[in-house]
């Protein structure tokens, strides 16, 4: 008779890379549409992902998570009560052959931090790619929210010279937010 394997708990599951073929399993047809095309207030946020050599990264995936325009989340852990706006809040877009990604969403509202201080409108971002053994996390802020950005408690902890890497800039098509994994102007990434 054999011994039963032990299925007991013994710690976190480690992360591994998505590898080059993430587009088999991760993208959804509507992943890039946090809201449908034509939704009132829809904005496009787009950009490229670059590696440390300046090369475009064609095998990355961008995921976004954010509040709705009223600052609410459709989630039971929001102590203010889950938002009933019907806003999905989650975006997912692989980069294409030239490193480009884009999501269509709504601008998030003000979200308080743990102390109740208002945070500037922001979107949490996960970047996954071949060559990244764990996702990296950044935030999108908006250049046309200068006043809110100036008093944002998270931005305040980012070295001033690097803060611009977190700011999406208005562009004729929406907002541009390029991501540089490494090198000059490396995007600020956050430890969760």
């Amino acid at each position, binding site marked *: 008779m054999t011994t039963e*394997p032990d*299925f007991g*708990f*013994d*710690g*976190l*599951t*480690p*992360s*591994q*890379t*998505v590898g*080059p*073929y*993430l587009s*088999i*399993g*991760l993208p*959804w047809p509507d992943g890039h549409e946090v809201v449908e095309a034509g939704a009132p207030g829809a904005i496009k946020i787009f950009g490229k992902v670059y*590696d*440390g050599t300046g090369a475009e*990264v064609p095998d990355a995936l961008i*995921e976004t*998570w*954010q509040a709705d325009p009223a600052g609410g*989340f459709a*989630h039971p*852990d*929001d*102590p203010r009560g889950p938002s009933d706006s019907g806003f*999905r*809040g*989650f975006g997912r877009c692989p980069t294409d052959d030239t490193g480009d990604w884009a999501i269509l969403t709504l601008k998030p509202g003000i*979200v*308080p*931090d*743990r102390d109740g201080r208002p*945070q500037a409108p*922001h979107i*949490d971002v*996960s970047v996954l790619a*071949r*060559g*990244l*053994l*764990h996702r990296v*996390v950044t*935030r999108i802020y908006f250049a046309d929210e200068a006043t809110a950005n100036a008093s944002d*408690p998270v931005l305040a*902890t*980012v070295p001033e010279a690097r803060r611009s890497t977190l700011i999406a800039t208005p562009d004729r098509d929406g907002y541009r937010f390029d991501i540089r*994994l*490494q*090198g000059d102007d*490396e995007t*600020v*990434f*956050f*430890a*969760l």
Partner: protein
Amino acid sequence: MLPNYRRDDGTTHPPLLSPGYKSTVPRAPREQFVLLPHSLTEVTGPLLGEGRVTAADADLTLAPGGEAQGQRIVVHGQVRDAGGRPIPHTLVEVWQSNAAGRYQHRWDQHHAPLDPHFTGVGRCLTDADGHYRFVTVKPGAYPWGNHPNAWRPAHIHFSLLGRAFTQRLVTQMYFPDDPLFAYDPIFNSVRDERARARLIAKFDLSATVEAWALGFRFDIVLAGEDGTPTEDPHDD
């Protein structure tokens, strides 16, 4: 009161710069990460899946229009947080090579047969107790260009959203006793031996189906809440 998720203590996940895996060299960020306090945005997360997956998405052997070639396997397990609490109704997404070690992807030019009846993608939701179950075929090992005679151990990619943005995890499940473990820089990027062992599924006779499929169990543990509420160290 907001949930308070425990931060990674640096002993489980691989270092982003792991030069044995060449692609990390130009891609791993080099600047110091900035501590992100866990506000509402981080302790909430997408609760998706209902309406996005069907029962058929959990069987990778029957799509499209024929039966996949290879050794049929059942892969199942439980998704929990680090406090041992099951994570119900969370989306589990998998992708993998076929039994010959080839991905159905235009970039994969490995000289091994493609299987027209195997797309290599599956999805399911965990049940009320955090359990998931897939039927698939055992993926093959395949060569890659990382170093001379480099072959990846057989693996299945797993993606989990969890309940909160802090819990998002992408990992790979390996099979017991693979002779390639010692040579694989992605597997070995996880430095702690016990943590590496958690990437390996266990053969599970109870999930094995008579005369039809071998069973493997792969439990997945995501970041958990702190037992005792503490202040985020954001004023340090």
